[in-house]
């Protein structure tokens, strides 16, 4: 019964129940042949199965049960006596009906197999004493005794809406009269057939003021579902109404489904409402059922509920789901990527860089010649150029998640190898950064994570001893922060051993004895070349050659790395990286006739240096800015350019990197500047405090400052 139509489940169950009842009634009749009530039960069973089968268009069952029903009717009316012979024939009828039912449900497309047919003919002959005429088995008899619920052949029903009305017992008292609906239905279409289900009427305690009637109506109309549903609008509270669109409409609906726009992924309900299979009311009911079911812990897809409630044909629901999948795929395909040679992208970025530079040149000339009418055009162009720049750079942005998720495997394998129990948590995987940065951060990250796995997280035994959960955690997070991306590797391991690091650093001659390092600086020593505290190097890390390489790699990306640790609680490694390597929004300053560019995102504020409002400690190079003391650095002095102080109006540019602040003293502020980063030549690579250079509009070169590095210098 694998592909049993869901809509039929109720029918099948009901029919099987009735047939079982029929069997036991028949067996009871053997002992007590005169029991009219039992005969009645038999009659009702055949009667109801015939009616429901008609609804589903199982004409074979209808035809066969009709014969059995006729005989039972005769028995009931005393025209025929029931004897053992008839009982065994009727038992055969019951079995045959079961088989027919099975056949109709499992393979509704196929005709009756010969075997079933011949059994049917035999039984009918035994029942009636006549050979069934061809007509009565294939079509429904039109004899005057024809049952009321003979709803007509399947072809007729195909055109009909099937409306089930299950009235609640209070319906009459609430002033709801089923008849009025039928009468009203007549005004918007043809009632092809009505089946009144009377089986709910109780034998005992019949309360004539309660409603026990259920109706199934085959209704032929051109009206849409909403119109039909509106007929029952004011009875919604007193009646469960299911309206199943006609089969003949299926094709129309399927066509409509096909025509639905494919620009977004629609929800199943939305689609079905749009093509008119369902009304909002249907969906509301189904959703309500769904949420109740979910609360009960047995969730069910909406489609299944709709079919079960008999408000939509399974075929349409299936098709709609198919369509949904298709649209989903299509939308996904549309949103997918085209492969572009990264060189082409590189060229584009370079060109955009040139465009930015020549835009700046144009600006300069416009300003120089005071061409106010050109200024506006130039302004527009600059806006466009910066938009193009952003988009071009954005092309190279990729989410870091993919890189991150590769570490799941690393963590899994390594923790197995080390027999540790470690879980990796990833957050912020959607954070985007330049593809080249992503590629080049992979190795350092791998190294850092292995380090955490190897040295950071303790073995399960150690962890339990330390009163921590057996399972260690490593968290990998990424987020944007003021024009940078911050990547953190947080573990809840043992933390760094300060004493060990210091001892090692001193013995390796990295720091002198009697140093005055802060904790932070001590921890950062592990990035120094030639320091490994682990007595025995493992495969994974700890050769003392890794961490300094990590730092170099990160610094090569104009980023920096910091480590913080609490003994026994864990270690946090923070990597700060620029979003892109190509173009930045810069802030241009001038000191000693040289121009310098600071990344705009690092600039906090600019104030007048010698305003007398702040205390300036010239000896220690500290300035007390509104109560916050910070080191300052005279850029002209630092880079050794000629001192040529224009007047005395120097400015202090306050910059921040990470948690550190410092001031740069400059002669002049030139303001924002789109900066295309050009790498410095080999010769200048080792000049501290510089990360690159850029070409200005007038052809001059400006140096791009390494803010983090300069802050360190200022503090020193």
């Amino acid at each position: 019964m694998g592909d049993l139509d869901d809509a039929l489940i109720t029918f099948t169950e009901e029919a099987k129940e009735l047939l079982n009842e029929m069997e036991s009634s028949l067996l009871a009749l053997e002992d007590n042949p005169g029991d009219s009530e039992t005969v009645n039960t038999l009659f009702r069973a055949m009667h109801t199965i015939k009616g429901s089968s008609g609804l589903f268009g199982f004409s074979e069952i209808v035809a066969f049960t009709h014969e059995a029903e006729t005989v039972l009717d005769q028995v009931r009316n005393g025209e025929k006596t029931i004897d053992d012979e008839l009982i065994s024939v009727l038992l055969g009828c019951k079995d045959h009906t079961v088989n027919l039912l099975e056949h109709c449900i499992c393979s509704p497309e196929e005709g009756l197999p010969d075997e079933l047919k011949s059994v049917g003919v035999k039984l009918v002959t035994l029942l009636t004493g006549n050979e069934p005429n061809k007509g009565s088995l294939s079509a429904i008899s039109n004899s005057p005794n024809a049952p009321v619920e003979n709803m007509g052949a399947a072809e007729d029903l195909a055109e009909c809406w099937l409306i089930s009305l299950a009235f609640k017992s209070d319906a009459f008292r609430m002033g709801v009269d089923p008849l009025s609906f039928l009468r009203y239905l007549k005004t918007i279409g043809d009632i092809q057939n009505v089946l009144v289900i009377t089986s709910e009427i109780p034998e005992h305690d019949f309360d004539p003021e309660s409603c026990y009637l259920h109706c199934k109506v085959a209704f032929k109309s051109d009206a849409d579902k909403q119109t039909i549903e509106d007929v029952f609008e004011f009875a919604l509270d007193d009646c469960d109404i299911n309206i199943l669109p006609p089969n003949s409409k299926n094709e129309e609906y399927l066509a409509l489904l096909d025509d639905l726009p494919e620009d977004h992924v629609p929800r199943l309900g939305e689609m079905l409402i749009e093509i008119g299979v369902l009304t909002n009311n249907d969906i509301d009911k189904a959703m309500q059922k769904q949420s109740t079911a979910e609360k009960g812990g047995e969730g069910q897809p909406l489609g299944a509920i709709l079919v079960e409630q008999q408000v939509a044909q399974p075929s349409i629901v299936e098709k709609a789901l198919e369509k949904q999948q298709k649209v989903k795929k299509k939308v996904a395909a549309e949103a997918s990527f085209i492969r572009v040679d990264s060189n082409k992208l590189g060229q584009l970025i370079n060109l955009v860089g040139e465009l930015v530079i020549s835009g700046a040149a144009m600006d300069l000339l416009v300003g120089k010649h005071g061409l106010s009418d050109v200024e506006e055009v130039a302004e527009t162009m600059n806006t466009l150029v910066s938009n193009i720049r952003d988009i071009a750079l954005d092309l190279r942005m990729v989410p870091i998640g993919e890189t991150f998720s590769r570490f799941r495997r690393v963590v899994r394998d390594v923790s197995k190898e080390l027999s540790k129990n470690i879980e990796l948590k990833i957050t912020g995987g959607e954070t985007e950064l330049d593809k080249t940065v992503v590629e080049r951060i992979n190795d350092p990250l791998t190294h850092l994570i292995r380090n955490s796995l190897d040295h950071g997280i303790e073995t399960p035994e150690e962890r339990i001893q330390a009163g921590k959960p057996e399972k260690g955690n490593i968290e990998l997070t990424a987020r944007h922060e003021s024009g940078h991306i911050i990547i953190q590797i947080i573990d809840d391991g043992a933390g760094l051993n300060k004493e060990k690091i210091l001892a090692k650093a001193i013995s390796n001659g990295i720091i002198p004895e009697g140093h005055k390092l802060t904790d932070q600086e001590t921890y950062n020593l592990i990035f120094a070349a030639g320091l490994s505290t682990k007595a025995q190097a493992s495969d994974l890390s700890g050769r003392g050659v890794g961490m300094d390489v990590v730092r170099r790699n990160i610094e090569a990306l104009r980023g920096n790395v910091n480590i913080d640790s609490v003994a026994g609680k864990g270690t946090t490694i923070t990597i700060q990286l620029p979003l892109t390597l190509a173009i930045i929004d810069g802030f241009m300053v001038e000191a000693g006739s040289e121009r310098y560019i600071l990344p705009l995102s690092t600039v906090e504020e600019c104030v007048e240096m010698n305003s007398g409002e702040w205390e300036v400690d010239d000896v220690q190079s500290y300035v007390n800015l509104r109560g916050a003391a910070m080191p300052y650095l005279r850029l002209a002095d630092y880079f050794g350019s000629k001192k040529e102080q224009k007047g005395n109006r120097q400015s202090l540019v306050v910059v921040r990197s990470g948690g550190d602040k410092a001031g740069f003293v400059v002669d002049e502020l030139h303001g924002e500047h789109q900066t295309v980063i050009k790498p410095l030549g080999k010769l200048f690579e080792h000049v501290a405090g510089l990360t690159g250079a850029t070409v200005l509009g007038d052809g001059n070169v400006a140096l791009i400052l390494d803010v983090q590095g300069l802050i360190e210098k200022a503090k020193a």
Partner: protein
Amino acid sequence: MAIDVKIKSDLITHVVIQEEMTIYTVLEQKNELIPCLKADAELQLDLSGVAEIDSAGMQLLIYMKQEAIRLNNRFSLYHHSQAVVEVVDLLNLTSFFGDSIVLPVGWGE
């Protein structure tokens, strides 16, 4: 009184229902009619006087019919009024009751 009960003989009871069979009258009518429904007897319901019948009234008739079958009572409806015919027809219950419906002359005009 909406119901006239005439006992024709030991076996045949003849009941004429007047005016209406609706939610407002069904309780009373049921209480009157049920005693008339005796096992192995016959009950004839004359519906000629029923000017109005609603679903509740029809449900009562359906119940009576079912009950009659249980009691082996030959239960029949006759002289259907136009209102009754319309409802029986609407609900497709003609053959359920199995009574011959005589359409009065001029019916449906």
